[in-house]
């Protein structure tokens, strides 16, 4: 085949397509339950949390929203962010063999993997909305555009964080353990399962530093007309984090490219 003269942009797009297809095959055929787990995981989280709350007998109402749809939205949004981060930061080491081709840059592997992960999550989210609507829960978005806006922001945020952590994890493999452990408190403090409204006001001030809390509260306001998020939630604050993470991540990839390739 004659290798045509291609522009850098054409080469990059070709690499993204190839990596995307490779990641899709690897993700969906990794093991026997890989594809069903995509949907089963968020539902399993919901079931366990609802059961847990019933067990301790503290099923309280969330002001302005039904409890289960409220939970489903929080969990699905958070799982998308977590998957982007966890899988995105492993992308470089998982594709090491492919850096033999100079067209493939470390940053491409992270972007392709996060792109795929986001698309799968979007598909799963849509399916879950339909599934829960079918069994009678009210889960249709009240402001679809607002939901899309926040969903896309979380997607980009996950990508940015994955870009940063993929550099950290490749340079210091031990860091992966701490980063995974860090996700556990973030999960609890993002208002996924416990409404942050119930925390004391002094504590809320500190919890509001967490951008994922903003994202999850904001996406809920898009679903429920009467839902009132915690005071101080702002889309602007979320956007600061999203764009800072993305640009810092791209900067890291540019700065440490040689080191990432040489490992």
């Amino acid at each position: 085949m004659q290798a045509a003269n291609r522009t850098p942009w054409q080469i990059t797009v070709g690499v993204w397509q190839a990596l995307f297809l490779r990641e899709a095959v690897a993700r969906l055929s990794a093991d026997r339950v890989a594809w069903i787990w995509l949907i089963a995981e968020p539902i399993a989280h919901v079931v366990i949390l609802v059961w847990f709350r019933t067990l301790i007998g503290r099923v309280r109402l969330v002001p302005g929203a039904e409890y289960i749809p409220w939970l489903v939205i929080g969990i699905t949004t958070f799982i998308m962010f977590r998957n982007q981060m966890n899988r995105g930061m492993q992308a470089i080491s998982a594709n090491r063999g492919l850096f033999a081709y100079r067209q493939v840059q470390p940053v491409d592997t992270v972007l392709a993997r996060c792109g795929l992960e986001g698309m799968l999550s979007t598909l799963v989210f849509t399916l879950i909305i339909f599934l829960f609507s079918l069994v009678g829960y009210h889960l249709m978005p009240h402001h679809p555009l607002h939901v899309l806006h926040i969903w896309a922001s979380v997607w980009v945020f996950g990508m940015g964080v994955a870009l940063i952590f993929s550099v950290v994890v490749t340079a210091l493999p031990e860091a992966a353990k701490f980063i995974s452990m860090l996700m556990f408190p973030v999960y609890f403090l993002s208002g996924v399962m416990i409404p942050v409204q119930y925390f004391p006001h002094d504590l809320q001030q500190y919890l509001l530093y967490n951008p994922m809390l903003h994202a999850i509260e904001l996406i809920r306001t898009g679903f429920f007309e009467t839902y009132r998020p915690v005071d101080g939630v702002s889309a602007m604050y979320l956007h600061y984090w999203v764009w800072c993470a993305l640009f810092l991540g791209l900067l890291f990839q540019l700065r440490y490219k040689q080191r990432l390739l040489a490992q």
Partner: protein
Amino acid sequence: MIEVRNLYKRYHGPFGGDWVLKDVNFTIPDNVSVGILGRNGAGKSTLLRIIGGMDAADKGSVVRNSRVSWPIGLGGGFQGSMTGRQNVKFVARIHGGGDRIPEIIQRVQEFAEIGKAFDQSVKTYSSGMRSRLAFGLSLAFDFDVYLSDEATAVGDVAFKAKATKAFQDQVGKASIIMVSHQVGMLKDLCQAGVWISEGKAIWFDDIHEAIKRYHESIGK
């Protein structure tokens, strides 16, 4: 034409590292095949990786005015969890294969002759099968310069003959830069030679002289 100018390379370990290549200079004219010689660890593969654009030099530069392949050889280039076919498709896509992918797959399959293993994951391959696939894959693209890092070392006699013939057919169209310890193959395929020793590279217009010099240095 490939021009290597004032090339320096060292590996950065946690406690620093010694220079692997120190001030390497040479120019490879078009259509001249070059054999790279040197003892183990002399920096041959490193030089080839830098020429192929896989690794960057610490100082100096490499000017490539032609289409250069990736370094074909034992070390990597395939994703173990994917099948041979998927790997070939992947490489065809990143090289802008487009709608010619089926044709490329056909060519690789014919050259590699690994039968049913083509649809099994690469991690199950023997080193000989891997090198057959890698070699066939690189030949499916028309590069001006092929880089070979012991690409045929583990192949059987039939494969070595086939590989040599494939390169001899390319004479006039493409050249090769090869790292090898197989003297016969170097003499068959290369005209010029580079001997690497203690971080320096010495250019020889005649491969026989380079081999002679290398053998003297190892006391053979």
